[in-house]
């Protein structure tokens, strides 16, 4: 079979799966969930097959990268159907964000800067949803903006979901009074700098084109001095680092942040220096925040996928090193 044929089969298989999922979604199929017993059996089988791979490697048979891809695919996808509860302690960094929100008085104004896009949504969207829900539960006023073009759109998706929840829907929250989305503004960190002087100079209208002064929530918000707390969801530049350097250091804003796991290590210096009240780092940060807010959702659910895939990656690194040692520490693996 030629490579081209294999590729065509793979594409056809993906299309068939996509079609099945689409039909399921349109027809309102219920998601299948394995029982706890079945979930444990699946995990044990996965671990046993990894041990078998290790044994094969020791016996001199090398594993190709397609096998690695297959294992990662299974490790990421299967846990989504599993029913295994995981105990997670909430770290001090996450509690910092939670406590900062809980300390705010009802009616306080919270600025949510959404500086991310769809690729990093699996990590950051659960944080956005939990944070928005917590703010609404605490009767806080939310002002959303973004210096990434797709950030405010992601925020709208989160808002749509949270506003449909019965507990929040019962509050009859009104756009412009209880929450507002100012949309995207080009200019990277200069937007933050100019917001220090005047929000209105950067956001003449909101996301939907309503003039700034026609929005009761922000009409009297001149600059950062009228904001009680700021939460930045960031997946790169411009993001949390710029918010700390300008909004916190120059204008004294109280800031919490939610970052991707890749970006979080670069933000730790600001956390330990007290320039950030707290930090949600990656999927585990999202899951911990959900646990702290007593609202287990996507973050907690996706953590199982992350846990199993981490185990698989570790296993393959060990297998790779065994192969390296067996080959007399000479070369990296091919294939």
């Amino acid at each position: 079979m030629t490579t081209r044929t294999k590729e065509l089969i793979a594409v056809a298989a993906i299309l068939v799966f996509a079609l099945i999922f689409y039909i399921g979604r349109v027809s309102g199929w219920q998601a299948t969930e394995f029982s706890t017993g079945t979930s444990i059996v699946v995990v044990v089988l996965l671990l046993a097959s990894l041990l078998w791979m290790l044994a094969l490697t020791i016996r001199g048979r090398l594993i190709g990268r397609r096998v690695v891809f297959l294992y990662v695919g299974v490790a990421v996808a299967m846990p989504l159907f599993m029913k295994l509860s995981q105990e997670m302690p909430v770290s001090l960094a996450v509690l910092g964000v939670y406590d900062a929100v809980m300390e705010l008085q009802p009616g306080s104004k919270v600025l949510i800067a959404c500086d991310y896009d769809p690729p990093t949504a699996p990590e950051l969207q659960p944080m956005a949803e939990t944070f928005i829900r917590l703010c609404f539960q605490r009767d806080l006023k939310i002002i959303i903006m973004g210096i990434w073009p797709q950030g405010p759109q992601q925020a709208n998706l989160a808002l749509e979901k949270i506003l449909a929840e019965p507990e929040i829907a019962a509050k009859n929250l009104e756009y412009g009074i209880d929450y507002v989305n100012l949309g995207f503004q080009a200019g990277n960190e200069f937007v933050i700098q100019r917001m220090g002087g005047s929000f209105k100079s950067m956001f003449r209208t909101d996301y939907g084109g309503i003039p700034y002064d026609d929005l009761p929530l922000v009409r009297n918000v001149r600059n950062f001095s009228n904001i009680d707390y700021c939460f930045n969801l960031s997946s790169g530049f411009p993001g949390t680092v710029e918010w700390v350097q300008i909004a916190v250091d120059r204008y004294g804003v109280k800031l919490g942040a939610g970052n991707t796991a890749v970006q979080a290590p670069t933000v730790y210096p600001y956390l330990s220096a007290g320039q950030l009240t707290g930090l949600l780092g990656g999927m585990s940060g999202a899951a911990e925040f959900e646990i702290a807010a007593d609202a287990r959702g996507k973050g907690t659910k996706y953590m199982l996928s992350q846990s199993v895939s981490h185990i698989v990656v570790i296993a393959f690194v060990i297998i790779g090193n065994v192969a390296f040692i067996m080959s007399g520490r000479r070369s990296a693996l091919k294939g």
Partner: protein
Amino acid sequence: MFKRRIPLFILAFVGTLLIVSVFIPPMENLGEDFTLFFDIIAVFAFFLGGGNLVRIHFGKLRRRKKDWGFSIVTLVAFFFMLTIGLLKVSSVGGVWNIPLLGIGDPAAIAASPTTEGSWFQETFNYVINPLQSTMYALLAFFVASASYRAFRAKNREATLLLLAAFIILLGRTPFGMELTRWVPESFSVLQIPNMAIWIMNSPNLAGQRAILIGIGLGVVSMSLRLILGIERSYLGEDRG
């Protein structure tokens, strides 16, 4: 002569002025006012960027260069998004609105291109969003494969890095806690999640701070070189 001296003068003048303004209270807001120039320049950059993209891909198509088929996709996607965004094309409840062409509700001209029902928004939700997510999701496969093939304990430093990676990978999951739950509380620092926290808060923090300070010093020295006219590579000169 002016081609070189005028940009040098503008840079030296603006750079010095902005540094001085930080120390003189009446001039404090000067920096914010100057950021407006960034917005103005950014607008021209958008035009230049768009024009450049069209020029390069049309050129590729004309010369039938390798993978010219992808250029067709790029150009069609570019002009499609540009058209539906500029014309504010929308369809709400089966009614078409293209206000700039006089079709449908003329009041829709005031609406943002990102309001619900607009094609711009729908394309974002149902095309860009899943495509970008798919591209990023592929990283999981490549990272795993690359780790398997290249992450080797070749020497002492690489072994330390490998161990730190294992601790962080396990420490970020509940499995890590389960694995070392048996460790007594008095030795809790040896529990994997706590070791992961220590790695992030001590070695990582020290390294990150060193990098940040290095970057800061680099920015200061480069700024001084630019203001003093020593660094001239932005003028197209090879050497400072």
